[in-house]
Structure formats: C-alpha cells, structure tokens
C-alpha cells in the first residue's frame, strides 16, 4: 500500500477557509434543541421577576398598593421606584446620554411602562402577584404624534427636564425637544436649490416597527454576598459594555462582575441596550441574596424594549433638467418615545443618518434632525441595520424615484447618471464620509441584465393598457433600489459608546497539537461567528477550521470588545482576527526558519505551512510548528503560540448593492404578490458564501415584513395597537417571496482581508425596493408617494384614491 501526499487542492479544501461554503458548526446544537439560552439557566433557589406595567400612555401615579400581591403564596418582594431610590437606581442613564426611569417615578410616560417588579418563588406566583398590585392613576393628556409634540402649548412630557435647556447633544428648542443634529453646508445647499432646474419636496415617514427576535430580552442575576460578586447571564449583543455600565451604576468593581451572554436567539438591535428588567433583576438579587430570573413575554418585548425607526423625513432634492443631482436637503423629525434610549455611538444622536446622500454624487447637501419626546416606548435601535442607515437609504431611494418621475426619466437610468463612479473612490461625501470602495455602475447593470429590466418595463406598459381595458385587476410595480451601507463602527476618532472606543478584539491561542481556540469581543446571535471566524483563521494560518473553537460572550475569558450590531463583527472583529493571526504567523515563521535552518526571508507561505523558496520539498506545517512552539522553540524565544489583537479600524466599510423587486397588486383586495426579487450584494471579500446567502435571505424577509405591514401603531389615547403576533406582521415561509441572490466583489482597501459586512445590507436596501415597487405601480395613476407599511388595506386605499375601483 502506498500513500500519496495530498494535492494542493486537497490541502486547501481541508482548511475550509475563506470562500468555502462551510456548514454552520453551531447548527449541530441549535437544530437538535441543545443550545443554551438564558431561559435554560436554572439555579438552586432561583426567584422569578415579573413587571406591573402601565395601562396608560401618560398618567400621574397617585398610589401603588402591593399589600394584596405580597399575600400571594410565593411572592417574596415587590420593588417600586421608592425602593430603587435607596440604591440610587430609580433612573438609569441611556446609551444616548438621556436618563430613563427604571420603575415609574411619579408618573408613567408610555403604555406598558414598568411600574413595579414582583419577585416570587416561581414564574406563576410572580404573575399572580403582578395582577394584584393596585396602581391608582391620574390620566394626563397623551401625545403620540411627534409633530404635535413640538407644538407651542404641548403638554410637558418630561417633568424631570423642566428648566434644562441643554441636553446631551446641545440646546433644546422646546420642552419636548431632545436634540438637533446638523450636518453639511446650509448656504451652499440653499444656493444649489436656488439655481436648480427641478426640485422636489416630499415627506417620507418611516413608521415605527420592532426587531422582534424569536427569543425576547431576558437575564438571570446572581449576587454572591460572600464574595461581593455579581454574575449576570443575559441576552446581550454587547456583553462587555453591559459589564462596564453595570459596574459604573452599581459601584461593584468591574472585576467582580461576570457578564455572560450564552446562546442568543436573534437580536437585530433589540439586545444592545440596557433595560429596566436587568436593573430590577440585579437589585432583587442583591436584596434577596438569591438568583433572580427575568424573561420578557412577547407583548412586553414588542411594546417596551427597543422599537425601531419612527423617522419622519422631509426630503428635498435639486437637479438639472438633464437629470444630474445638484443638492440634497433633508429634515427629520425623529420620534424617540418617552426617553432617548437610542442605541447609537454616543456622539451620533441620529446615527449615521448623514449617509443619506446614498450612492450618488451630490456636490452639496444639508441635513438636520430634531429628536422629540412622545408618549411611546423609548428606544430607537438599529433594527438589522447600521445606525439610522435604513432610514437614510429609504429617504434617498424614495427621493431618487420621485425626482426621476418628475424629470420623466426611468428610475434606473436616473441612478446610473448620478452614481459615484468607480474612479472617484475613496470618495468624500458632501456630508462628511469617506466611502472606501465601490463599483456601482457594474452592480446596477448586472442586475438590470439579469432581470431583463427593459423587458419588464415593456411588460408593465402592456399590463397597464390591459388594466385600462378592464382585462385585469392587477397593476404591476417595479422597484429599483441601490444602497450604500456604512458599517463597522468604528474608528475611535469618531465612535464611542459612553466613552468606550468602538474597537474590537480577538485572542487566538494555538494548542501544541495544532488545534486552536479563538476568543472574541463580539457576540453572535445567529450570525454564525463560530463558523466564519474559524474560516478566517484557517486561511490566515493554515489550521483547518474544524480544529478551531470560537468562543464568545463570557466577559471573564473574552478580550474586551464592543459586541455585535451594526454589521460591525466582520469589519472590526474580523480584522482583529486577521491581525492576531498574522502575529502568530510571524512567530511561526521564526520557528520554521530555525527548524529548517534557513533565514526567515528564505521562507514562503504555502497553504498550511512554510516552505523554503526554491526547495518545495523543504516544508514545515503549522501543525508541526505548533508542537515546536511549545516544546522546542528557538533559543531565547518564549515558548507558546498565541496572540491578541485589538483593532481600531481606520475607516468604516461601505457595502453596497442593487435590488429589483417586481410585484402585482390586486386593486380590489390590496394584496401585493411579489413576483420576483433580485438582490445583488457587494460585501467585499466573501468569507462564507452560504452564510452570506442566508444573511441576505433573512434580511430581505425582514425588509419585506417592514415594508409590507409590520408596524407598532399607537392610537390617539396612547394604546399600542397590535402589539402581539396576532397583528404584528412576521412573515412565515408561506408569505415570504422567493429570493434570487447575486454578488460582485469590491474589497475594502483598508480592511486586512477586504471584507465589509453583509448582515444588514438586505434590510437597508430591501425596504426601499419593496416600497419603490408599490409606489411605482401607483405612480402611473397620479401618485407621488404612499407611506409605508404597504399592507392590504393601505394598498386598497391608494387604489381607491387614484380611481382604480371605477
């Protein structure tokens, strides 16, 4: 029997490195129901907490009587703001520089606001107790409309801010005003509008919705009185940030706080912030000396923790009659609810909304965002998008369509005329960003060819005629969307959260046998980090991905990082992986040179080890180097093979893509049938094409939901309408359209492996594609803009408004 040496291809394949459609290693446990989520954590003597929540949108609390609740067998304690004041925790700071009530202090400002925390021996007793806490309210006038909130005589919502004319982000113009954030050159922009041939002005309201992950927000807090140590398991997208904030708030030294994020069932931005449930569980554990679990139910999740959007954008655009854009002016009224709990980098109260110039070469632009309070749940998180980027993309992509219509140009053609050209990168945008790389023209044309765009437009014209003749009751819409994301927050020069710079980290330790463990500052909530991170290491240092364990979420063992949101894991932590791997590779090269008795410079890298240049049979594999690193390192070299990298990115990354949506709307029912959806994404270097495709499918499905019906709506009395899965639209496989995916590859020039991030692109680009398709269908009948969500009855209303029922 003879053994043949593996071929280069076999050695490459064995690594399962970058570019490989490697199956997700985490799915082995997830698909068997063997994941460990917060609610799987059970400890001896553990207590359970449940909230008493406000029935009113705005009311003064006259009295809270917990006496009946305390008589329920099993109820241990009932916490109210009065109790929290004793430990100075009735209010907590938000990530946005505001403060938020942990438990209602004097009044409630939104329906389902937390009023009291009932702690009991079991979950049932806690719920029974919560039912019996009597709260006496005095109803106050409710404001749910951000436009009315800023009216001169509007009711004062935040009495704690009376007399404070300056907030965390500068002057406040009104008692319900939070901040004004301005970017760009106003004078130059005004001048561009003054000499423009054509201008448009349109209000694009992006409705309030919610990330609604499958697993809600939850935690278990366990305070050890003997050691004075707090262990906190929770659904944390950013566990280290939670540890630091918990230390600052509780005054427990940071080394005595152990924050652990176990498996997480989806986040989408919902699990970035700190919520009253976490604080109450911690306080309850300190008070009772027992572990305390808090688990949100679905209604609580939808109505109290972290909504998204609620951005009301007045978009003005200027252009020449030939169809070149010359200026952009946007004003946003941003509804942040009762407290500004927006999860953005601290100096960016409107996130990266200044990406609103999109993929187009606007010479000048000006944007102003006014944040306001209303009697709605607090938050303003980035729901599967980088900070306020999906709002910005929606604004510019609707604006481009409205302008194209006014100019009499096809929306795709209008975009092609105005794209930033490949040779303009790195490109300085009028609102202050430096786009790293892009080839928009190629991407757009590739998609147009794939769907036969000209053919679709011809078919649409024919269908319109058939509709007018009464042969069909459906109208056809074609939605074009081209987006530029801005992800990978972020460079410490402009990004921090409560003063913590937004770097990320990786520690790689190679074991003597050539296997490895990598620990990360990020935290997967389903993204597949355990799979993809190992692939980066495999390619960088030639260890098979299958031999690498990736560990995240335990702040005692993981290097400090800022977590996973805003598509930052690959751009920031992915870079840290490459940098740590390269440190290891450099040491490995020294070891190999010593062992092969050559100079380091005589070695070259070859898939899974080093070989001597010109002598291909003289090689040393990483596996052998690993053993040597521990057991026979060169003289004067420390044994071991490990490295840590903290990566502070020099710039953001700018993924982009071109999407086209084709739909038919039944004018009699308003039902929109998505006939085709073609999505091309360019996320730079592609690490695992299968996972990218999965990410795109998931993001498009969420975009479909948001555009076509998903909404957190309030009535005028401040009641949440549809705050459960009975009404809140989460599409099933039946409603979800078929997705066609495609890609181009334009690597990021500043990222060590050229990767840009992809998880959120489909939500950013998807929402305008759907909305543009609906609007396109009605545009031929006199419509300029129809607000989202485009659910059945609103489509029917539009059909009625434009006379299509006659």
């Amino acid at each position: 029997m003879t053994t043949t040496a593996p071929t280069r291809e076999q050695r490459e394949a064995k690594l399962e490195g970058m570019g490989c459609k490697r199956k997700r290693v985490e799915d082995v446990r997830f698909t068997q129901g063997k994941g460990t989520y917060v609610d799987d954590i059970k400890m001896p003597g553990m207590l359970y907490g449940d909230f008493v929540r406000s029935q009113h949108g705005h009311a003064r609390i006259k009295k809270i009587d917990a006496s009946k609740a305390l008589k329920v067998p099993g109820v241990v304690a009932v916490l109210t703001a009065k109790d929290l004041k004793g430990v100075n925790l009735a209010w907590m700071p938000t990530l946005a520089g505001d403060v938020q009530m942990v438990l209602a202090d004097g009044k409630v400002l939104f329906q389902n606001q937390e009023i009291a925390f009932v702690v009991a021996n079991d979950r049932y007793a806690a719920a029974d107790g919560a039912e019996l806490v009597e709260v006496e309210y005095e109803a106050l006038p409710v404001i749910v409309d951000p436009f009315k909130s800023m009216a001169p005589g509007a009711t004062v919502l935040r009495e704690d801010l009376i007399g404070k004319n300056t907030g965390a982000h500068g002057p406040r113009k009104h008692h319900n005003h939070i901040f004004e954030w301005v970017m760009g050159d106003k004078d130059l922009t005004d001048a561009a509008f003054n000499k423009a041939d054509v201008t448009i002005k349109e209000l694009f309201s992006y409705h309030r919705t919610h990330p609604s992950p499958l697993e809600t927000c939850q935690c278990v807090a366990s305070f050890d009185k003997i050691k004075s140590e707090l262990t906190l398991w929770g659904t944390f997208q950013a566990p280290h940030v939670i540890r630091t904030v918990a230390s600052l708030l509780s005054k427990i030294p940071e080394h005595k706080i152990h924050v652990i994020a176990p498996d997480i069932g989806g986040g989408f931005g919902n699990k970035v912030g700190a919520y009253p449930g976490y604080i109450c569980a911690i306080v309850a554990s300190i008070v009772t000396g027992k572990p305390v679990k808090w688990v949100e139910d679905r209604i609580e999740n939808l109505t109290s923790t972290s909504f998204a959007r609620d951005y009301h954008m007045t978009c003005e655009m200027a252009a020449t009659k030939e169809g070149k854009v010359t200026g952009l002016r946007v004003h946003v009224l941003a509804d942040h609810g009762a407290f500004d709990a927006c999860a953005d980098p601290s100096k960016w109260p409107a996130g990266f909304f200044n990406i609103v110039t999109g993929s187009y070469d606007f010479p000048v632009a000006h944007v102003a965002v006014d944040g306001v309070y209303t009697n709605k749940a607090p938050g303003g998180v980035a729901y599967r998008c980088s900070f306020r980027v999906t709002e910005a993309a929606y604004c510019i992509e609707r604006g481009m369509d409205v302008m194209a219509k006014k100019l009499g140009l096809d929306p795709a053609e209008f975009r092609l005329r105005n794209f930033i050209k490949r040779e303009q990168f790195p490109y300085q945008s009028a609102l202050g960003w430096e786009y790293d790389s892009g080839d928009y023209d190629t991407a757009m044309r590739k998609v147009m060819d794939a769907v036969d765009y000209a053919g679709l437009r011809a078919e649409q014209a024919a269908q319109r005629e058939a509709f007018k003749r009464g042969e069909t009751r459906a109208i056809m819409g074609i939605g074009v969307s081209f987006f530029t994301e801005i992800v990978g927050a972020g460079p410490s020069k402009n990004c921090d959260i409560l003063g913590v710079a937004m770097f990320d980290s990786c520690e790689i330790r190679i074991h003597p046998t050539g296997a490895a463990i990598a620990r990360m500052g990020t935290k997967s909530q389903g993204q597949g980090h355990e799979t993809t991170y190992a692939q980066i290491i495999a390619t960088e240092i030639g260890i098979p991905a299958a031999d690498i364990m990736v560990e995240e979420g335990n702040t005692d063992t993981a290097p400090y990082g800022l977590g996973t949101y805003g598509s930052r894991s690959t751009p920031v932590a992915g870079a840290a992986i490459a940098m740590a791997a390269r440190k290891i590779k450099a040491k490995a090269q020294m070891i190999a040179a010593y062992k092969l008795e050559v100079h380091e410079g005589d070695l070259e890298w070859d898939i899974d080890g080093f070989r001597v240049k010109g002598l291909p049979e003289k090689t040393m594999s990483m596996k052998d180097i690993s053993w040597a690193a521990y057991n026979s390192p060169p003289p004067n070299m420390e044994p071991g093979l490990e490295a840590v990298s903290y990566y502070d990115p020099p710039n953001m990354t700018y993924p982009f893509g071109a999407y086209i949506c084709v739909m038919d709307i039944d004018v009699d029912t308003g039902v929109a049938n998505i006939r085709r959806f073609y999505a091309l994404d360019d996320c730079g270097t592609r690490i695992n094409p299968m996972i990218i495709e999965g990410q795109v499918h998931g993001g498009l499905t969420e975009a479909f939901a948001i555009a076509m019906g998903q909404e957190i709506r309030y009535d005028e009395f401040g009641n949440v309408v549809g705050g459960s899965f009975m009404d809140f639209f989460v599409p099933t496989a039946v409603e979800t359209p078929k997705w066609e995916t495609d890609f181009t590859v334009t690597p990021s020039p500043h990222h060590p492996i050229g990767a840009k991030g992809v998880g959120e692109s489909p939500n950013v680009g998807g929402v305008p594609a759907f909305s543009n398709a609906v609007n396109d269908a009605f545009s031929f009948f006199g419509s300029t803009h129809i607000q989202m969500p485009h659910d059945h009855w609103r489509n029917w209303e539009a059909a009625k408004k434009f006379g299509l029922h006659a």
Partner: protein
Amino acid sequence: MIPAPFTYHRPKSLAEATGLLVDLKDEARVVAGGQSLIPIMKLRLAAPDHLIDLAAIAELKGIARGATSITIGAMTTQAELINSSVLAESVPILRETALQIADPQVRYQGTLGGNVANGDPGNDMPAIMMCLDASYRLVGRAGARTVKARDFYLGTYVTALNAGEILTAIDIPVPPAGHGFAYAKLKRKIGDYATAAAGVVLTVSGGKIQTCAIALSNLADTAVAADAAAKAVIGTALDRTALSAAAQAARGVMAPAADARGTVEYRTDVGGTMVKRALQAAFARAKG
C-alpha cells in the same frame, strides 16, 4: 402570558363532563383543542377556576357517514377533517376551509367542535356550517337537544349553548353530488383571522344556479348568513350583474370592526369581493 391558577379536570365520559360542568357552575369552562381558550387565559382575559378537558372522551370523536347526513364528533381535529376521504368526497368545503385555518400545528390540536362552539366571529367553520345548514347536538345533564347553526350564534362569544351544556357533535346534511363550493378567505398571513371571508355552497342545473347558500366570517359580531346575496344569484348564470348584486346584498349584512386589518369601509368592500370570488369558484366547480 401566564394564566391565573385553575384546576384541571380530564373526565373520561360525557356524563362525567356534564356532571362536572353542573357542579362547578360558572367557575368552569370546557376546553377542546385549546387553540382559542388557552391564549385568552394566558392573557388573563379569561380566568376560569376549573378547566374541563374533553380530550379523553372517546365518544366525542369520529366522522360517521349516514344515508343523508354526516355526523362529526366535536373533538374531531381540523387535521382529521383534512385527512378524511369521506369528507373529501361528500363535503369537500370542510377540507378547503380547514386548510385555511391557522397552521398545521394548530390544526392538529384545534377541533371542529371548539371552532363552532367558541362564538368568535373570526372562527371559520361557523359560516361553513351555515352554508351547509348543519345542526349542533347540545348535551346537558337534563338531556340533549339540537340547534341549527343558523340559530346558534347570538353575539360575539354569545351562543345558544346553555350553562351546563356541551356541544357534542355536528350533523351535516350531505349536499347533492356535483354541488359547487368555495371558501374565499383574505388574511394578512398564515395564522391570522380573516380580514374578510365568504363561504358558498351551490347547485347548478342547465347552466343556472338552482340553490345557493352564502355565509361570512369575521364581518359582523357573529358569522352571518347572506341570504339576500344568495337569492340574487339563484336562477342566474352568474353574470356580472348577478355577481355585483350578490356582493352588494352581502355588504348589507356586514358590520365589521375597524382593526389592524383595515377600516370598516375596506373590510366591507373586500367582504363583497370575497363573496364574488367564492361564487365564481363554486360556480366553476359545480356540475350541471
């Protein structure tokens, strides 16, 4: 989402169940598949002290074909309706409707009896039972009686079922061979109640509609029969005028609530559209 405390009973016979119901009076509710009652108990909108589960009562299950009628036990699940070859052959509208109820998980648990006895206008089967002119067998300790589906629904969650009575079976007259049928249901997504829905059962002879029954789901405070609409198409070949007249007549008996599914105006209008579409589908399927 945690229900108030309750005592769980699992009687083995109908007599035991009706006895419990009488003894426990208002504090007790019977539960069939639990797909409506359990969710509202979890929201604490219902908080019965006693829950009497009918799942272990064998006599409440099964599908029996008689000479002119079919009897379906109240505890027969939607999945069992879907998988019944007898029903597929004789009363295919049951299968068509059951397939539009929620999702497979719900249909394996949810029962026909629960669906029709609940009194929620959003349930789909009551309108179908009206179209088929079905009767419900109601059994209490005092004895048994029969009430027609058309007379059973008095208001939202209010039915002809008396305290202490259990709906045990549904008797359905077998519609003539070759009849046309359809259940047209507009909903936002799988698992949702109807925005508007219409059931139609009709017969055709010589190209013209001979008999017709139409009933609506979730368009009033109960399922509601649209008799004037049915009358408007009888004797016609379902031309445009007849269709419009039927839709208009059906809209006359609708009184939907405005909710997240849409305004009253919208739900009423699409209710008429569902009537049209159900009529067209039923007419196309009918032989004769």
